[in-house]
């Protein structure tokens, strides 16, 4: 820990959370452009890239060329090692940037050089300064090639070990959002827009104190330590039937695979933001289908009232699921937090407004990746998502059941069920 950060974190009492947003790499900086469209109040935005040219085009107020000595501002050339080395080179500066923040958002596009290589390092640095780190990343399109996919998965793996929470958006899922005539520019625009939207949703969730409050700990409990990608979705509607509309939108949301992600989810965070006219029945209407869909999930519900949302209703959903394909959990067991003795003595929970946190936290070393592990990671990428039988909806059995003796007789239909078909088949009772 450098002396400068210690000095900066000296005044421990803060009423307002200090939130910083870092866009890392080309994609990350682009997302910042979208996020800056409607400024997030009380948030420091900063663009970090190895490519000086790309940085110039970025709309962020603060910019930093990473590893200028090594790359001379010419970019990482799609090599994560270069990105990592560049970040290592500027460690001290990065520590400076991170210090004093309570929450740091990292925006990056995984698969390239800077985002993939530098983001885990920056996440580590940020965590070491005591901030809570949440990474919002995109995974490359499948057409970008296997190498980028592998790089992205490796980067995601490292990022998960370094950051408190990682939420990722596989770009491949965007194909469900776009039509045939969508241009490349528009496609990436949608991707960046979604990420920015997610950022805004999560920022709102953390920064606003809600009726039913959701804090960072809740977010972490949903996203952290899970060896599977978390997914997010936001939906908004206004008017009389807004609750139903939002529920419908969520059910059909392409990022949720038409509800598949929801039914697979092990934990789910739902943040509802509405105007002062938000009604209890609306929350109920909204939650009923969700909780039915994720009957196995641990659901955390947050609700907030925002004057700007009069007549509107916005919902941010973060869903994540455990990995069941035998990949051992990557994150090391949580190490006991290193608490400075003078801080430990301080009554931390006396004043709720006091956000004292230990300055330094133990961060595990980056996980080393064996070849097998790489293979496993590649298999686990979203394009190859495993199929778990959904408990939500029983489809009509495509197997044509021969009704034997009753084949030619008038079917016995009760409540829409053909009773001539064996009961155990209709009820889906397995005979192993």
């Amino acid at each position, binding site marked *: 820990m450098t002396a400068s950060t210690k000095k900066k974190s000296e005044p421990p009492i803060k009423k307002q959370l200090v939130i910083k947003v870092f866009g890392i790499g080309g994609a990350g900086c682009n997302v910042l452009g979208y996020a800056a469209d409607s400024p997030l109040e009380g948030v420091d935005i900063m663009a970090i890239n190895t490519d000086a040219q790309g940085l110039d085009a970025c709309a962020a107020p603060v910019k930093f060329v990473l590893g200028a000595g090594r790359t001379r501002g010419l970019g990482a050339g799609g090599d994560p090692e270069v990105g990592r080395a560049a970040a290592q080179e500027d460690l001290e500066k990065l520590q400076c940037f991170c210090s004093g923040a309570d929450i740091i958002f990292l925006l990056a596009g995984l698969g390239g050089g800077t985002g993939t290589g530098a983001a885990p390092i920056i996440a580590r640095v940020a965590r070491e300064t005591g901030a809570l780190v949440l990474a919002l990343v995109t995974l490359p399109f499948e057409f970008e090639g296997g190498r980028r996919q592998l790089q992205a998965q490796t980067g995601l793996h490292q990022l998960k070990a370094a950051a408190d929470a990682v939420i990722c958006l596989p770009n491949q899922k965007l194909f469900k959002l776009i039509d045939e005539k969508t241009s490349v520019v528009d496609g990436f625009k949608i991707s960046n827009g979604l990420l920015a939207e997610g950022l805004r949703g999560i920022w709102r969730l953390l920064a606003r104190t809600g009726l039913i409050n959701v804090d960072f700990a809740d977010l972490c409990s949903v996203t952290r330590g899970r060896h599977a990608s978390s997914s997010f979705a936001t939906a908004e509607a206004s008017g009389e039937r807004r609750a139903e509309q939002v529920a419908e939108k969520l059910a059909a949301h392409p990022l949720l695979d038409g509800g598949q992600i929801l039914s697979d989810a092990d934990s789910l965070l739902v943040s509802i933001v509405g105007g002062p006219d938000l009604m209890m029945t609306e929350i109920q209407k909204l939650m009923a289908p969700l909780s039915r869909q994720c009957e196995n999930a641990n659901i955390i519900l947050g609700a907030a009232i925002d004057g700007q949302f009069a007549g509107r209703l916005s919902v941010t959903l973060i869903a994540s699921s455990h990995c069941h394909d035998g990949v051992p959990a990557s994150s090391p067991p949580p190490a006991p937090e290193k608490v400075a003795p003078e801080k430990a003595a301080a009554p931390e929970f006396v004043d709720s407004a006091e956000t004292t946190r230990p300055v330094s936290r133990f961060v595990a070393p980056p996980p080393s990746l064996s070849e097998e592990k790489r293979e496993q990671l590649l298999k686990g990428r979203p394009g190859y998502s495993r199929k778990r039988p959904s408990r939500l909806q029983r489809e009509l059995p495509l197997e044509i*059941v021969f009704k*034997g003796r009753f084949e030619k*007789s008038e079917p016995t239909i009760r409540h829409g069920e053909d009773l001539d078909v064996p*009961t*155990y088949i209709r009820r889906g009772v397995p*005979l192993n």
Partner: protein
Amino acid sequence: MFDSASIIVGLEIGTSKICVVAGEINAAKALNIIGLGQSRSRGVRKGEIADAALAQEDVRNAIVEAEQMANVEIRSVYLGVTGNHIRGFNNHGVHPVPSADREITLEDVQDVMKNAKAINLPADNTVVHAIRQHFHVDGQSGILNPVGMYGARVEVDMHVVHGLVDRLKNGIAVVKALQLEVDEIVFTGLASALALLTNEQKELGSLVIDLGGGTTEYVVYSEGIIKHTGVLAVGGDHISNDLAYGLKIPLGRAEQLKLEHGSAVLDGTCKGQTVSSPGQLGLPPKSLNLEHLRRIMSLRLEETFQLIESELSHLGLLDRLRAGVFVCGGGARIPGIQTMAGNIFQLPAFPGKTNSISGLKSALDQPEFATAIGLVKFGSLQTKLKPASGFTEGIKKTFVEIFRR
């Protein structure tokens, strides 16, 4: 030897067997079962005739057997009818009392019954039974006989059982082809209930479930009257079919396994056990998982009971069944069926035992014969209702009946 007029014969053309029971009214005016004939049924599916020629042959065999046993000549039968097309519902008839002193006369009662029988049925449906439930006089309910009472308005509840004319005719045609007369057609569920229930049980409230080969009939009695009747075209055949499908064995083998190893309840003892089925066409014997067999079977039975249960609970009849559930038909032989019925209906469940009929003990104790015995009992009640009428009047009445039908 016997006067054929006092011989009452019940014929049930069932899905798995055809059953003929002959009874006579003895000197003490009590019903006595004297003959029993049965034959395997081949021409019936789900309680309805599917092959008239085969059915006719089987009926002939059963009739001949009964004739030989009872040593009588059978000329007419009470025919049991069932099938998915048969429905029961409750109807209501209203009649204002026109007389000045507002005394209810027999004519008023007949009028109100006529009103209640005037039902709007589809053109191809006909009434099988119209059974009087209770009278209401000026809103006062639960009146059994309003004649002589005073009131401005008399109402009656009727339970009407109706079915498709053509389907009913199929059964009658099979009997007619054998040069036999059909005295009356009777819904088999009703016949079973008649055979099983005592007056006290009818009063307390009972549910009779007749688990047949192709159909399951159920009748609810409460406060001494019929509250509800219904048919579910699911029976023992379905269990055999499910087993044949699930265990991948021929239907005949499935039938046999059902009889030998079947059970309605799954207990821990059958876990991991196997039963061997002899190999077909020289193949080695096949071993089958007993747990699977029982699971398939219990799921089917459970579903059948649950369908009935949900229907009755929807009608609010479950709370009125204080005497319990009575199970008859071939399905009553399944081990554990009473336990299952008891669990699903949350009521005491008993095997159906025919009562208050004397005669062949061997016939009376079998749950399969409840329907045919009930048909005889129905016949005996019909003849008791018109005992005083002379011979000519009897003929006239018969003609009237025929024309009405």
